């Protein structure tokens, strides 16, 4: 062995690993098992530690940092309750395939299994909601394990990776040697799609009479928005995004037919149901997207499915042309083929464009399914989102919590760019909105960041107002306050005979005073005529550096439309006009 630098502690090794990975922010909360690590954090300044007020928020904020930047988010929590508090955040990231590394402290190796103070089996608890996890048993394995964790988190279908580090390991000494690369015989994600399959797909796409692009979170995660836009425009196909895919195709473009699914637009759902060739890209046909699978299959269509994860293909829906590969790589190859081998076919097709299909789609668009009854007396939640879009010029980072406000945000804020829409699509975790806004704001300090939330969701992580103060995060909270758990109330109205069981929020705090108590600016807005002025003020230069909490008292009885009731088919939507 050649001469090496003197051995350093496990805690220092851990910090050096984060430096090697070029980590800029670590979101965390200290505790007994991670004290050695925190001592090393104190001695360095290459990354900033963001102290949250609850470990769940640390993971959510790191998750949003990743969503907003495309890099791996990092969270650090202590053992036991710190670790279990992090689990909701980890499961949230897992369902949406967000690349993250979560470092959890563990009790010292000799007492593992002894029911020690603040001990939980973190590897066991998180196994079903991580891409992979590790318990570090040997100081010599620490650096290599960290390297593997970052590699696994970011490659293939991304996901969170937990590294559980016993306290004694952080105190032991070893030489630091960070591996340059990783090779795992058991893990080698596919990048390039099968050329034969890609050509087969293109041929079908060019022959299609009623084609449809259905794209999901994979477009955003795979940085494929540009390729998708180019390909769709070349082909002239209508495009729909899932909730997770919003921003993957410009929402203000004429080829965009809106979001699909349970609260998708009439035109998106009808096109999805009626198309003859469906191109699914980085999407997974989940229950909120296709409704009743039996009904979906009552129509004959050819399905092409492009996804980096083979297990996403033919999971819920049988696919005709599967293409396993990185979506950006596959779409780029398609674009190249359309400019090469398939150029003449494409040009020949230009003579008979998809006129009839677009005519049909425009007819569906004519239903204007997102119209809602305007009011001078009560604030319509949809109008707040529309105004927010105008005031921020459609260029803000928007986070949301979960419920009606989330759907209105998705329907009425037109996202033209990827990574601007940050929400918990898969797990549907109430409480993510505020920590998500913190992560997005730290990722883009000069950008406008708004958290669209409701009075129920916001209270699930309200303590983070304190973190916002400490780190000067000028997040704008748009609280659509209808004094109900709106989505629960909506289902109770439609399917449970108006029995609003436990969905009313009584004894709400005065959000203005609450915001002020945390050192922020608070506004209460009760009149429709005040909506625009307050939004403008909140985003004005005077308040650029301040966090602003806007409490909009909105129409209590407003519902989200269109709606595909649970178990119904995509074309069996309830529209606002039907009621």
């Amino acid at each position, binding site marked *: 062995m050649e001469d090496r630098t003197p051995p350093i502690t496990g805690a220092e090794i851990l910090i050096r690993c984060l430096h090697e990975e070029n980590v800029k922010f670590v979101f965390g909360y200290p505790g007994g098992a991670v004290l050695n690590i925190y001592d090393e954090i104190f001695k360095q300044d290459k990354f900033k530690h963001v102290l949250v007020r609850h470990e769940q928020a640390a993971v959510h904020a790191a998750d949003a940092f990743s969503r907003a930047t495309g890099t791996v988010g990092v969270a650090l929590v202590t053992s036991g309750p710190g670790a279990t508090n992090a689990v909701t955040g980890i499961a949230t990231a897992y369902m949406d395939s967000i690349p993250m590394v979560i470092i959890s402290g563990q009790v010292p190796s000799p007492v593992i299994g002894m029911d020690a103070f603040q001990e939980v089996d973190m590897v066991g608890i998180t*196994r079903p909601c991580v891409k*992979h996890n590790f318990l570090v048993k040997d100081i010599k394995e620490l650096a290599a394990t960290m390297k593997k964790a970052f590699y*696994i988190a970011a490659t293939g279908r991304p996901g969170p990776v937990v590294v559980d580090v016993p306290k004694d390991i952080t105190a032991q000494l070893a030489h630091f040697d960070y591996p340059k690369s990783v090779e795992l*015989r*058991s893990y080698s994600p596919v990048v390039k799609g099968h050329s034969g399959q890609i050509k087969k797909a293109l041929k079908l796409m060019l022959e299609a009479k009623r084609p449809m692009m259905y794209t999901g979170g994979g477009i955003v995660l795979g940085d494929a928005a540009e390729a998708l836009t180019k390909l769709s425009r070349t082909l002239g196909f209508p495009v729909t995004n899932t909730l997770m895919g919003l921003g993957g195709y410009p929402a203000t473009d004429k080829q965009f037919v809106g979001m699909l699914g349970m609260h998708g637009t009439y035109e998106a759902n009808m096109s999805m149901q009626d198309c003859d060739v469906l191109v699914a890209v980085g999407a997974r046909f989940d229950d909120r997207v296709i409704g009743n699978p039996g009904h979906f299959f009552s129509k004959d269509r050819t399905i092409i499915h492009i996804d980096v994860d083979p297990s996403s293909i*033919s*999971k819920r829906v049988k696919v005709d042309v599967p293409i396993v590969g990185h979506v950006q790589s596959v779409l780029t190859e398609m674009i190249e083929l359309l400019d090469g081998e398939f150029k003449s076919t494409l040009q020949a097709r230009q003579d008979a464009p998809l006129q009839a299909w677009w005519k049909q789609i425009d007819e569906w668009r004519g239903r204007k399914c997102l119209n809602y009854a305007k009011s001078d007396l009560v604030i319509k939640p949809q109008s707040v989102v529309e105004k927010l879009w105008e005031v921020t010029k459609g260029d803000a980072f928007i986070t949301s919590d979960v419920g009606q406000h989330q759907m209105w945000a998705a329907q009425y804020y037109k996202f033209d760019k990827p990574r601007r829409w940050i929400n918990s699509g898969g797990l549907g975790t109430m409480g993510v909105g505020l920590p998500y806004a913190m992560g997005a704001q730290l990722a883009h300090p000069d950008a406008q960041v708004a958290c669209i939330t409701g009075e129920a969701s916001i209270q699930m992580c309200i303590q983070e107002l304190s973190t916002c103060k400490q780190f000067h995060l000028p997040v704008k909270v748009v609280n659509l306050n209808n004094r109900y758990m709106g989505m629960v109330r909506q289902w109770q109205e439609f399917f449970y005979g108006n029995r609003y069981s436990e969905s009313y929020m009584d004894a709400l705090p005065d959000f203005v005073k609450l915001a002020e108590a945390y050192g922020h600016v608070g506004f209460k807005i009760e009149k429709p005529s005040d909506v625009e002025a307050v939004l403008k003020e909140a985003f004005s230069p005077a308040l650029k550096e301040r966090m602003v909490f806007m409490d909009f008292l909105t129409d209590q009885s407003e519902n989200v439309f269109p709606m595909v009731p649970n178990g119904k088919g995509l074309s069996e939507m309830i529209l606002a006009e039907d009621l």
Partner: protein
Amino acid sequence: MKHIISLLMENEAGALSRVAGLFSARAYNIESLTVAPTEDATLSRMTIVTSGSDDVIEQIIKQLNKLVDVVKVLDLNDGRYIERELMLVKVKATGALRDEMKRLCDIFRGRIIDVADSSYTIELTGTGSKLDAFLETLDKTAILETVRTGASGIGRGDRILKV
């Protein structure tokens, strides 16, 4: 339909629970599961007997492949294979039963590996269905105890599962 799935995985703590957890989390059937290290000490080989429609089996294979610790997966039913399971059965062996048991054991090509005053312990190897058949042949009241290993499987001829 019944399928026998063979897989090679990193011989690491927790690897077995990842596979077992996957089957319970996704509500896949699991009839038997055996695991032991291979000639390469860094690898374990697992044989899983499961059942399901073709779609479900396809998903099981994909989900197994997705586990980071799993190196290779093979559905033995995709080709010709050999299946073997070991069973130990303790049976009553008194009076006339003593000869009867010996005879049945010979017919099934088992071996008596322990002899006591009133019992035999029989070792029997074969496919799961052969072991089932043997148990069915025995008078239920004569069976004192059974223990089975679960199936192990290997491809015939050139079908080799190796890294």
